[in-house]
């Protein structure tokens, strides 16, 4: 934990700049200016988020199958209302110029279009319907006691690695 602050102070060459332009939606590129114990808030937010995912059955393989067969409104309701609330929040943050609790200006990096959003999106869709989980729910499934999902997560990490390795050769 303490290394977080140390590295941000030591780093003189902004290596993140490159990765950020390569893949804007991935790297937030924010300096960790607060003491590292402040990072505890992310664990707490994660716990709440995990509880919501499990209790709303978003982590359920069955709910995902219903969604992709148009047999239930539940998942569309969850994602749809989450987007509406998120949209209103972002609009308010922008309109009212709301700052972070540390007084920083809130920045939301723009995403640029590339064909990966189509090809990768389709491949992820396949995986989503097979595993019945997107990345967040995979972690929540493991936590709720499905130890075998650790293999699915390791496989997802392998998939991410292979993407990184083949990145330059893939159409984008």
């Amino acid at each position, binding site marked *: 934990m303490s290394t977080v602050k140390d590295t941000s102070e030591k780093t003189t060459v902004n290596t993140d700049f490159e*990765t950020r332009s390569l893949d804007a939606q991935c790297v*937030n590129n924010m*300096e*960790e200016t607060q003491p590292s114990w402040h990072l505890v808030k*992310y664990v707490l937010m994660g*716990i709440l*988020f995990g509880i919501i995912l*499990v*209790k*709303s059955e978003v*982590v359920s393989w*069955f*709910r995902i*199958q219903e969604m*992709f*067969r148009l047999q239930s409104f*539940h998942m569309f*309701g969850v994602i*749809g*209302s*989450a*987007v509406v*609330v*998120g949209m209103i*929040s*972002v609009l308010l*943050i922008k309109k009212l110029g709301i700052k972070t609790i540390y007084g920083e200006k809130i*920045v939301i990096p*723009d*995403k*640029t279009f590339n064909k990966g*959003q189509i090809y*990768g*999106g*389709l*491949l992820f*869709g*396949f*995986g*989503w319907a*097979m*595993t019945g*989980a*997107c*990345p*967040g729910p*995979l972690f929540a*499934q*493991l*936590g*709720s*006691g499905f130890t*075998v999902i650790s293999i699915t997560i390791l496989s*997802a*990490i392998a*998939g991410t*690695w*292979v*993407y*990184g390795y083949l990145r330059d050769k893939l159409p984008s």
Partner: protein
Amino acid sequence: MQEIMDWIRQPWPWYVAGPLIGLTVPLLLILGNRTFGISSSLRHVCAACIPANVSFFKYDWKKESWNLLFVSGVLLGGVVTALFLDDPNPVQVAPALLEELSGYGITDYSSLVPADVFNWPALLTLRGFILMVVGGFLVGFGTRYAGGCTSGHAIMGLSSLQWPSLVATCSFMAGGFIMANLILPIIMKL
């Protein structure tokens, strides 16, 4: 108190869970200027553990440690729910799905993941291997190729009116519809 706990233990309706998930967006922005996204954590794990001189993994992942902490929290959230907030009733499933799944030998509706398919011994069967290992690989490969998953694109991206995220979200859904309706019936019968 008992009544409140009983209420919490039931499955939550979409109009409770959806808005709460949506609130993660402003919460992360206001508490730390972070844009919501979960699949990046898989990239950070690669960068931390097996960068192997691949340029895509050569960045200071420690600056993104918040993301890894968030997913550890999601895992802990699963533990907390299983320990304290578990719903003892079987999962309610749409009748049409119930009928289809019974044809694949799925009879266990005691938990959110079908234990008939997702278990350790099943890893050694063709069906289990395809669903868990190949499926997981596609989740990792696809989300990174697309630059995000349901959280980063569908929720964060659409919330901030990013049109590439709309393209990605439509592609996720198209992929899911194709898999669930056309390919999965074949895999499930293996």
